[in-house]
């Protein structure tokens, strides 16, 4: 096993319990699906319930032998990893009000910086990416992208 990896059986077990809870919730939800008519002997409930049972059984096997999982990031690395989806959500929420180019600029600058680019380079790279992708999709490929309404 490489240095960055560790046999973290406990992390695997926590994941296994989460999946087991998912199977339980999915099974209960599946057994309560409401329907007016069923034109076949199985109906819409049986498949979800069967799958919930299957997943639960597999989770029990997995809990006994969770095997190898990668070490989860901690401290600064965890903060950097979590910053990426946060930035993504932020720029996606900006997409329709501010438009594609601005939203992509924010995303590319932030992610570039998180990935280790010096601040100025990240800004320059983001500017280039926003221009490039806007040109490629809006002009070359004619893909519809929001123009935004914040600035009129």
């Amino acid at each position, binding site marked *: 096993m490489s240095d*960055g990896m560790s046999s973290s059986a406990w*992390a*695997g077990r926590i*994941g296994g319990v989460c999946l087991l809870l998912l199977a339980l919730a*999915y099974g209960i*939800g*599946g057994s309560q*699906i409401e*329907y*007016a*008519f*069923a034109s*076949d*002997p*199985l109906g*819409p409930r049986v*498949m*979800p319930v069967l*799958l*919930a049972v*299957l*997943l639960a059984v*597999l*989770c029990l*096997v*997995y809990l006994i*032998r969770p*095997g*190898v*999982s*990668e070490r*989860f990031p901690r401290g600064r*690395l965890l903060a950097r990893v979590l910053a*990426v*989806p946060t930035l*993504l*959500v932020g720029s*996606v*929420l900006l*997409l329709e009000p501010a438009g594609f180019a601005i939203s*992509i600029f924010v*995303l*590319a600058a932030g*992610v*570039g910086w*998180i*990935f*280790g*680019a010096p601040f100025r*380079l990240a800004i320059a*790279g*983001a500017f280039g*990416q926003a221009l490039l*992708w806007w040109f490629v*999709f809006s002009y070359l*490929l004619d*893909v*519809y*992208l*929001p123009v935004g309404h914040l600035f009129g």
Partner: protein
Amino acid sequence: MNFDYLWQGFSVALTMQNLLIGLAGCFIGTLVGALPAIGPINGIALLMPIAYTMGLPAESTMILLAAVYCGAEYGGRISSILLNVPGDAGAVMTALDGYPMAKQGRAGEALMLSGLSSFVGGMLGALGLALFAPLLAGLAIGFGPAEYFVLMVFAFATLGSMVGSQPVKTLIGCALGLMLATVGLDATSGAYRFTFNEPELGDGIDFVVLVIGLFSVSEALLMLEHQAGGVTVIRKLGRMTARLDDIRKSVGATLRGSAIGFVVGVLPGTGASVSSAVSYTTEKRISDTEGTFGKGDVRGLAAPEAANNATACGAFVPMLTLGVPGSGTTAVMLGALMLYNIQPGPMLITERPEVVGGLVASLFIGNILLLLLNLPLVNIFARVLTVPNWLLVPGILVLSIVGVYSTHASVFSILLMLAIGMAGWLLRKAGFDMAPIILGFVLGHVMEVNLRNALAISGGDISILFQSKISIILWILAIAMAVLPLVAGRRSKSRALAKAVSPETSA
């Protein structure tokens, strides 16, 4: 056997528009394959919605995606040889002998020789596909809903036994995929399942959203953690031609690798990572009499490269004829066909010969283009390895957002993609493979519909699943697939134990 579909396919694939699309696909595919950690699935997942939104016809989209797939299998070898970091899962074994060759100053030879092996593997794989696809489609015409259901069970049994080191994780992945496929309107009963009163989930989770979330978003997060430190690209390529002696020496390995690759590709659910590993170990057993494998032996380079390219073609056989993907990547391509409301199955070859034939013909043409592209341009592709992550990752994320937004024009879909991406990241950290989830998702709906149709025919009598000869054979194969690896694993364990014990006892 009727090969009309193939001639029709060549007339489709040889139009100027499709030739250019194929060429672009080969180029993009090689780049995607060359970039470490970005494999063919990511490339196809990102291109698929854009091709669809641009209004390309189904056959052109398939030609583009098939070219990307094959291109990525070519490209994967570049970073394996020059970086010792496989460009995709199918190129892991290529590094074992390719990187030592590069360190000996023979990088150029390794790239050329592996390019040739890739070409032979790809061409033989395409030939196998052209021959076997009509044959299998002819056999499958007699399949009813019961046989289809058992076929899906067989596909999952194969997957569980061959993919990943832990079958239970693979099977959990399949179950999660099947569960995700149940979200949305159940057409038979009119019931909404697991939609949480969200109108956008009424039609179920969109395939594009799921694939891009699972592969691209989670990949970006993993790349942040695995930011390469201290990896150096070998820049001195040496002579850029393969030696005639080496070519002669690797002919057997290439042919054996192609055959193994094709067969593994045809098996449902098993992709290039399995075939390249099987072909390398087989070649090592057959040819490594002087212990040169792992130290830059050309046969150890040729076998897995031929295999992964043959697998890419073989994986299309069950996808096009049975609607069961032969690999994770073909599962994504199956989803692409579904975007066009095309349901692959035995009738596809007669109903849409331009799609099947166009794809098969494009594999032949694509392999020639790839050889022509890869031999002179390998230097340019090698330069891609130096693109820094801070430029690359935002690019991947932008393509992910555009891909989802272009097909849905909704922010909800992008947020759902991000949530799926986070879940995918957690699962990948825990050692789960994403391909089984995609396979489960793609097959889930078909599997349920066929089970329900079969039971509707029999009036709820479950014995219909065991009545026909085909069903019984498929059940036996499924059980064999599930049990054999366990038996083989136990035997090899006891053999290893015996080996470990014997020196002590003899001492």
